[in-house]
C-alpha cells in the first residue's frame, strides 16, 4: 500500500460507505462481542475457572465438541459421495438433487428439529423401525449427531463441488495412461486433489455444528451430563440471571471453535504446501 492508508481514487463515497460500515459493525458485532469477552471476568479468574469446569459444563462442552467433530466426519464421507454423483453422473432428477442439498441452509432449524424428532421418536417413521433393533436415536446423543449431520451436509458438498468440477480431465487420463486402475485413480489422484476442499467443508460443518441449537434441542432430550449441549447451558444460565456464567460458557465455546478452526487451518496450510511442492 506504499505507506498510504487509502489509495487515492476518483470514485466518490468512500467516506460515507466506510463510515456506515464501521458504525454498523461496531454496533452489531464489536460492542456485543466486547460484552461477551468482558463479562465472564466479573466472576474473577477463580470464579470463571470454577464456572466452566463444573461437571455439567464439562460434559456439555465435551458432547458439543465431540458430536460436532463426528457429524463433520460423517458429512465429509457422505458429502463426497453425494458430490461425486452430482458432478460426474447424468441421471434424471440431477438438478433437483442438487437443489435439495441446500435445504438445510434454507429450512429453519426449529422446523428441522421437530421434524427429525418426529421421525426418530419411538413411534416415528424410522424410530419405530430402529427401536426393535435396540437402537434409540431420539433423546440420546445419537439424535444430536443425526441433527448435526442434517445441518452440516451442504457445507461439505458446496465446498467440494466447485473443486471437483474444475478437476482437469487430463489429470485422470494421464493417470490412466500410466496404468492406474479406477480405484487408484480415485485414491491417488482425485482424493488428494480434493483434500483441501474437504478440509474446508469439514471446518465449516464443524463450526456450524458446534454452535447449533434449534435443530438439536428438540431431539436431544437435554439430560444433564448425558445429552445436554453447551448452547443450551447458556440459555439455562441466562434464565437463572447468571449472566457472567452464561458469558463464560459462551466465551469458552468461542475459544474451542477458534482452536478447532486453527487446527484445521494448520492442516490446510500443510496440505497446500504439499500441493505446491
Amino acid at each position, binding site marked *: 500500500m506504499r505507506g498510504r492508508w487509502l489509495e487515492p481514487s476518483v470514485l466518490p463515497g468512500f467516506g460515507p460507505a466506510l463510515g456506515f460500515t464501521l458504525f*454498523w459493525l461496531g454496533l452489531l458485532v464489536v460492542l456485543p462481542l466486547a460484552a461477551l469477552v468482558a463479562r465472564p471476568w466479573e466472576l474473577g479468574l477463580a470464579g470463571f475457572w470454577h464456572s466452566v469446569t463444573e461437571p455439567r459444563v464439562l460434559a456439555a462442552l465435551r458432547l458439543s465438541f465431540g458430536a460436532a467433530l463426528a457429524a463433520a466426519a460423517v458429512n465429509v464421507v457422505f458429502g463426497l459421495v453425494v458430490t461425486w454423483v452430482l458432478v*460426474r453422473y447424468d441421471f434424471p432428477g*440431477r438438478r433437483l438433487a442438487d437443489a435439495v442439498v441446500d435445504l438445510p441452509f434454507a429450512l*429453519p432449524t426449529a*422446523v428441522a428439529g421437530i421434524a427429525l424428532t418426529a421421525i426418530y421418536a419411538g413411534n416415528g417413521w424410522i424410530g419405530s423401525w430402529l427401536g426393535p433393533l435396540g437402537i434409540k436415536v431420539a433423546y440420546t446423543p445419537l439424535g444430536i449427531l443425526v441433527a448435526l449431520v442434517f445441518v452440516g*451436509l451442504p457445507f461439505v458438498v458446496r465446498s467440494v463441488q466447485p473443486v471437483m468440477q474444475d478437476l482437469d480431465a487430463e489429470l485422470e487420463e494421464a493417470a490412466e495412461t500410466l496404468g492406474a486402475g479406477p480405484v487408484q485413480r480415485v485414491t491417488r489422484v482425485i482424493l488428494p486433489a480434493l483434500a483441501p476442499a474437504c478440509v474446508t467443508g469439514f471446518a465449516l460443518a464443524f463450526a456450524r455444528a458446534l454452535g447449533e441449537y434449534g435443530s438439536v434441542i428438540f431431539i436431544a432430550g437435554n439430560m444433564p451430563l448425558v445429552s445436554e449441549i453447551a*448452547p443450551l447451558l447458556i440459555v439455562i444460565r441466562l434464565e437463572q440471571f447468571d449472566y457472567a456464567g452464561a458469558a463464560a460458557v*459462551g466465551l469458552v465455546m468461542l475459544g474451542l471453535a477458534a482452536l478447532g478452526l486453527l487446527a484445521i487451518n494448520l492442516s490446510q496450510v500443510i496440505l497446500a504446501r504439499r500441493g505446491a511442492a
Partner: protein
Amino acid sequence: MRSVGLKRPASLGAFLLLAIAIGWLAVVIVLPLVSVFAEALRKGVPAYLEAFRDPDGQAAIRLTLLVAGICVPLNAVFGLAAAWAVAKFDFRGKGFLLTLIDLPFSISPVISGLVWVLLFGANGWFGPALEAAGIKVIFTVTALVLATLLVTLPFVARELIPLMAEQGTDEETAAVTLGARGWTTFLKVTLPNVKWALLYGVLLCTARAMGEFGAVSVVSGHIRGKTNTMPLHVEVLYNEYDFVGAFAIASLLAGLALVTLALKAGLEWRYADELSAGRRH
C-alpha cells in the same frame, strides 16, 4: 483445461454410488421435509387450517414479517455500503474488516442472542440505565430485531463483495470521465451490474431472518402474541403437545424454505454469470 463432464452411470459401482447418494439425500434431507407436511396433515385438512385461525399464530406470522421487513433492508443497505467501500477502494485494514463482516457466520446463534442480554438485560451493561429511562429492550421486538440483524448481517455483503471486487472500478471510472455524478454512477452503473447478486443475498437474508430460532429464542421471552416469531411459536406449541399446530406453522416455514430454494436455484441457473464466482455451479 477441460473438465470431466457428465456421463450416464454404466458400471455396477456407479449405480451403487448413485444409490448411496440418493438414498442418503432422501433419508437425511427429504424425509424430514416430507414429515413436516405429513405431521401437519395427520388429523386432516380442517385441523390443519384450524391451526392458522389461532390469533397467537397469526400474531407470530405478522411479527416474523415485521422483523424480516426491518432487518433485511437495513442489512441490504449495509451490504451495499460495505461492498462499495471494500471492493471499490484500496485501504489498509481491509482484511480485518472482512473478518468482522464474516464473524456472525461463525458465532453460535445462542451467543448472538446472549450478547444482547449481556448489554441490555436486567443485569446488562446498559439494561438498568435504560430501564430507569423507561426503555425496555430485552423481551421486546427491539431485541428480536437486534438479534436478527446480527445473525443476518453478512448475507448481502458476502454476495456483493466478491462480485464487485471482480468487476473492478473500470466502468465507474469511465462513467466519471463521461460526466456522471457519484449517485448517478452508483445507480446507473454499479447497481445494475450487481442486481441479481443483491437479490440473491436479500433472498438468503430473508430466509434466515424469518427462520432464525436460537438467537431470537434467547432474547424473546416467549410472550405469546407479543414476542413470538413463527419459529418460536412452533416451539411453544410443540412443548404444549399441540403437534398439529406446531407442524402447521412449521409447514408454512418449510414452504418458505422451498420457495427460497426454487428462487435460488433459478437465479443460479439463469444469472450464473452475474453472481459471484463461488455461486456458479
